[in-house]
């Protein structure tokens, strides 16, 4: 039994190889690209919109709203990274409904690469918002003793992010495979439907956790800045 699509190798030359993970990822990317090109042609700027445009606008605005709900002040700034994260994971998971499809998210390499992207994006946005010194200083809060624990936490949560997604998707795929062997009728269909739900939930969790990490890295900056300027902090309840 294959635990990961990485093991399905189509072409290899030394260190370089093309496995099912990469191929299906390209397939997902191709679908996104084609959809985007189709939309670009049909895109209108007036009130007469196509169904595809309406659907995509709804999805994009929903993602933007979610980013904003997490606490990020300028959601469009993070839409490219976080939105792609969600859409990629979601589509990669949803396509499991097609037989023969191997979800790239069922590969620890893919989830780890996504987690590493988040691992890099968090300090990137944190430094961008707060500055290098201020961001690095946040690792010593509330006291300097917390520095190693903060660094460990930063690394461990990245791996947790990768393993959580990988585990869920891989286990779902494995359960379906096992069920196909034990009870090939009806039950795999139910499990596939359950797998779709799990896939969407995992995509949402991955996206939300990444958003929360970035928000934590950037909003701390805001709070610190406000404290330095002696400006009153507006509580969420007061904002409403």
């Amino acid at each position, binding site marked *: 039994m294959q635990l990961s699509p990485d093991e399905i190798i189509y072409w290899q030359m030394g260190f370089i190889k093309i496995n099912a993970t990469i191929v299906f990822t390209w397939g997902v990317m191709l679908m996104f690209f084609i959809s985007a090109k189709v939309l670009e042609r049909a895109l*209108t700027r007036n009130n007469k919109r196509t169904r595809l*445009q309406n659907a995509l606008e709804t999805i994009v605005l929903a993602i933007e709203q979610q980013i904003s709900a997490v606490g990020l002040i300028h959601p469009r700034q993070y*839409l490219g990274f976080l939105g*792609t994260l969600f859409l990629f994971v979601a589509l990669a998971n949803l396509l499991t409904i097609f037989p023969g499809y191997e979800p790239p998210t069922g590969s620890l*390499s893919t989830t780890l690469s996504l987690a590493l992207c988040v691992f890099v994006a968090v300090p990137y946005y944190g430094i961008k918002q707060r500055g290098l010194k201020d961001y690095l200083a946040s690792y010593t809060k509330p006291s300097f003793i917390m520095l190693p624990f903060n660094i460990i936490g930063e690394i461990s949560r990245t791996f947790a992010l990768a393993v959580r997604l990988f585990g869920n998707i891989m286990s779902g795929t494995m359960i379906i495979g096992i069920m196909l062997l034990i009870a090939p009728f009806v039950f795999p269909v139910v499990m596939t439907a359950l797998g779709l739900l799990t896939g969407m939930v995992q995509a949402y969790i991955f996206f939300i956790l990444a958003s929360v990490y970035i928000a934590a890295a950037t909003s701390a900056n805001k709070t610190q800045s406000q404290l330095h300027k002696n400006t009153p902090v507006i509580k969420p309840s007061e904002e409403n």
Partner: protein
Amino acid sequence: MTIDWFTVGAQTLNFLLLVWLLKRYLYGPILKAIDDRETQTAKVINQADAIKLDAQLQRKMLEKKNNEFDAKRDELFTKAKNTALSESEQIIAKAHINADQISKSRLQALERELEHYQQDIALKTLQEVYDVARKVLADLASVELEQNMFECFCKRLQNMTLDEKHNFNKALDAGNTELLIYSAFELTQTQIDKVDGILQQVSSAKSNSHFHLKLEVKTTLISGIEIRSNGWKIAWSTEDYLNVLQTFISQLLIKQRESIHNRTAQLNTQSHNVKNSA
């Protein structure tokens, strides 16, 4: 469950490429389209607000104009009403005056007509009475009747009042006065002598009074005798009785006219009272 670091790198690159692709071909165009539409909507809303504001201003202006127009209309209406009322009062007053004048002139015409009728009736009555009397007397005329008439005249002469005697003697003062005797029938010599004698007795008080008699038959006297001289006259005939009758009728008509006048004046007063109360 192993980590293939080449796949990790490749997937990272794939993901970053996908981020760029989606930003370039999906998020960018969609967000731009949304922004454009929102801008356009905001522009339309602003235009609508401007139009609404303009409409509100125009509505206020029209309401103001309407109010002014209503006030002006009310003012003109009141003015026209007052003018019409005063004109109406003037016309009614004029009509009353004209009606009074017409009524007055009609009353005058009626009075004239009434007077005319009265005169006409009196004249015709008298004429009829004359004719009837004349016819009756003519039918009854005989020597005896004429003699009786003459006797009556003689008694009349003998019983003259003092004023009549005075007037008679005054008429004789001119001397050689001619006394005209009109009679409805021809007098006999005896009758003439008797008249002469009576007149001589009446005038005997004055020695210088001379007169001579002149006879003339006058049928219009209606069975009577009359003596005239220098504005003096004494007579006895049915005409005198008829004259008395005419005088009586005239007085009766005058009384009747006065009662009509009083009644008309009463009616006029009543009508004036009714107008004033209206």
